[in-house]
């Protein structure tokens, strides 16, 4: 119970952050022609920022089921790496059905907070998942209902929130580790190349993101391998 409460508390800032981010997702979904309940169902069954962003764009453009699958696999492949990373942190009782159940809640931020722990048991991880999940659903609901009421200037401003959160996750780690700073700089530079260079810009953004991220991580893993105590695994 103590671990559950500790997890619950650790999840509060994530839940608040998700409120504003999923609020902008709700606004965006409705502006693309979705009903409010569709946006809420998407958030409650999927629980991911970038994947949902890609998904509503594909659905709105009737992009096809294959495009949906490919975009999700490429945008979300990072979760596989996080899952493997987290599998190295959990206590021995965290196994079997519990992993199948709690695997649903592995998001960038929940992963980041869990990784900062010495070890993660089921109760802590369960508690940690509660507030982000509620925040994500509630934010989507209010965004999709209030989106039409808010002026465009407010909606534009809220659209930056998700990227602000990404920066808040990267910055503290990049500040502490030069190789990590280098890896995110390489990744950003490659991503810009895919965006601006005419031949490359035809490639779908989901695939481009995965290519950039994997290339940057491979380069830095080769030239700056982590020490034993690093890697978010010990």
């Amino acid at each position, binding site marked *: 119970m103590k671990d559950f409460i500790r997890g619950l508390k650790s999840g509060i800032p994530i839940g*608040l952050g998700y409120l504003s981010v999923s609020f902008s997702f709700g606004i965006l979904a409705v502006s693309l022609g979705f009903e409010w309940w569709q946006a809420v169902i998407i958030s409650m069954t999927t629980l991911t920022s970038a994947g949902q962003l890609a998904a509503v764009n594909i659905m709105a453009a009737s992009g096809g089921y294959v495009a949906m699958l490919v975009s999700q696999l490429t945008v979300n492949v990072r979760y596989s790496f996080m899952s493997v990373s987290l599998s190295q942190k959990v206590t021995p009782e965290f196994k079997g059905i519990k992993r199948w159940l709690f695997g649903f809640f592995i998001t960038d931020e929940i992963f980041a907070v869990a990784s900062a722990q010495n070890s993660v048991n089921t109760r802590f991880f369960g508690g940690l998942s509660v507030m982000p999940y509620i925040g994500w659903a509630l934010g989507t609901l209010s965004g999709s209902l209030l989106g039409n009421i808010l002026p465009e200037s407010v909606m534009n401003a809220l659209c930056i929130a998700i990227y*602000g959160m990404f920066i808040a996750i990267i910055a503290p780690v990049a500040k502490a580790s030069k190789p990590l700073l280098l890896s995110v700089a390489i990744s950003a530079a490659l991503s810009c190349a895919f965006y601006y260079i005419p031949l490359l810009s035809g490639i779908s953004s989901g695939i481009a993101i995965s290519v950039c991220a994997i290339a940057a991580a491979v380069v830095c893993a080769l030239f700056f391998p982590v020490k034993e105590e690093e890697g978010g695994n010990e």
Partner: protein
Amino acid sequence: MNKEFFIYLAILAVSTYLIRAIPFAAVRKKITNRFLRSFLYYIPYTVLSAMTFPAAFYATGSIASAALGLLAAVVLAVKGKGLTVVAVAASIAVFISDLVLKMI
């Protein structure tokens, strides 16, 4: 739209779930390979970086306001502010700079 919506939703939700759950359930041993461990250390951050740049510059009313919002985010994040503070501050910075830019 409705039937199509639920097929899209099923693909979205199931693929996102499995991509998280399968590796989490399948990897039961400690990974000792140093390259793999290093790769796992870098990958979450390189993904976030590639998603942010350059897409974030086109998320608001203008590139200038987005850039100012991102600048606010970077400054506060480097100072160690939490997720919520950084996200809200970036939004406020965008809101104000869009207002000012319109007046100019």
